[in-house]
């Protein structure tokens, strides 16, 4: 044993370099003709994932890995709901398996991106961890993980590792510049539909909803103080075919009460498509039940 007191900062630095080495093989540099470079994550030997919102509207791109190898890639599918775009690559080899990370608030996290000819690394702490949430585009994200790391548009979509070298997911920019992680399980869940169908199908009713207070006299019958007032009905959509009207207040879907947009999104996941679903409404002061056939939401 050398009789040297290890400098703690150097040890931390060494450890960070070690972690970064784990991530290097996962970092993909994606270039589409006429567009600037984007970051992505080599998910498995034939799939690269990236941030959908940051990804240009192209069908093909070139993927370069950090070892300099480069592959032709085809955009297989996009999901604005979870902000994942999947690209098919041919000829790459499987990246070394990487453990699943576990997010803890305050823990260190490393966000990686592609840099011209290399890998960029950013260090910060996990700012907050919360339960599953729904995006405006209807996607369910398994956990709410925010980082106190600043990213540029080209870093977005790269892998995020925890201090133990476990993969947390891929980075993405959220509202007000906040950086979010799309968890590994969420990415995993959309890859198959993206590869086979090019999209993730979610339920659609063709309704514009606004949360409202249920009039007091109707609260006992509605069983809840809140509902969602129908502000608009898409022409020929499932709701229109079920004769829903602007002004109706939606209080339950499929027997489950809905009080917030998130609860509606929860009832309209991929499994709801094509299903007959019972909608409970307050119409002109009375409780009404109608059946609708759930359609497919157009992405966006």
């Amino acid at each position, binding site marked *: 044993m050398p009789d040297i007191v290890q400098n703690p900062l150097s040890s931390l630095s060494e450890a960070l370099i070690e972690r970064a080495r784990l991530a290097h093989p996962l970092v993909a540099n994606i270039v589409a003709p006429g567009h600037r470079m984007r970051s992505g994550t080599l998910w498995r030997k034939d799939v690269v994932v990236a941030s959908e919102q940051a990804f240009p509207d192209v069908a093909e791109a070139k993927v370069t890995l950090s070892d300099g190898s480069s592959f032709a890639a085809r955009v297989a599918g996009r999901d604005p709901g979870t902000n994942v775009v999947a690209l098919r690559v041919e000829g790459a080899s499987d990246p070394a398996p990487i453990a699943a990370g576990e997010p803890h608030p305050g823990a260190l996290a490393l966000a990686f991106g592609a840099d011209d000819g290399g890998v960029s690394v950013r260090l910060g702490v996990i700012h907050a961890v919360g339960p599953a949430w729904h995006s405006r585009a209807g996607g369910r994200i398994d956990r709410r993980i925010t980082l106190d790391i600043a990213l540029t548009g080209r870093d977005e979509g790269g892998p995020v590792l925890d201090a133990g070298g476990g993969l947390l997911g891929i980075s993405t920019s959220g509202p007000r510049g906040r950086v979010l992680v799309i968890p590994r399980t969420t990415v995993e869940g959309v890859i198959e539909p993206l590869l086979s169908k090019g999209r993730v199908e979610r339920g659609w009713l063709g309704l514009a909803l606004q949360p409202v207070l249920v*009039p007091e006299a109707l609260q006992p019958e509605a069983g809840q103080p809140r509902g969602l007032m129908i*502000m608009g009905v898409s022409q020929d959509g499932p709701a229109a075919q079920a004769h829903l009207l602007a002004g109706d207040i939606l209080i339950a879907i499929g027997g489950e009460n809905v009080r917030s947009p998130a609860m509606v999104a929860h009832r309209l996941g991929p499994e709801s498509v094509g299903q007959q679903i019972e909608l409970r409404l307050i119409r002109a002061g009375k409780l009404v039940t109608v059946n609708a056939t759930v359609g497919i939401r157009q992405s966006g």
Partner: protein
Amino acid sequence: MSAPAATVPKRLRVCVSASDVPTRSRLAALVAESGHQLVEPCESADAVLTDGAANGILPGPTVALGAVDGEFAGLLPTEATAAQIDAALRAVAAGLTVRAPSRQHRSFGPLPEEASVLLTPREVEVLAALGNGLSNKTAARQLGISPHTVKFHIESLFRKLDATSRAEAVAKGLKRQIVEF
């Protein structure tokens, strides 16, 4: 970058920089269509129009069409019209920055949280009437209630939305996002 011209002449001296001959001709035609004078070399121009693919740093304020983002004062999509190019060339010659609204929707984020203050269905209707610029009397007729009741709902809206005017109530009320499913 050169200092912006003190005054921008009506007819600009525009130089074209492109990666290939067909693009160069297309850009030159656009310059002519915008009513500007095509000049060479670029050092003597008021503004430069490029496809953004040419290498090297361009002298003077530059408008790039369909380019990857770079250090250009003006960035327009490939399909920009002659009128847009004309406006952009004038703007960059005057020292301004020009960007077309991005088609890329960078809107990934959560559904709105459960609001702490909720409006009643009637208040939503009254707010919509205010948004349409209706008077209390007209709103009352449209909703089939008395003007007095409309006034009552407006007072409640002001309280809930912490607004002191009809315009403020409408603006704050509209911010409560309507969500589509």
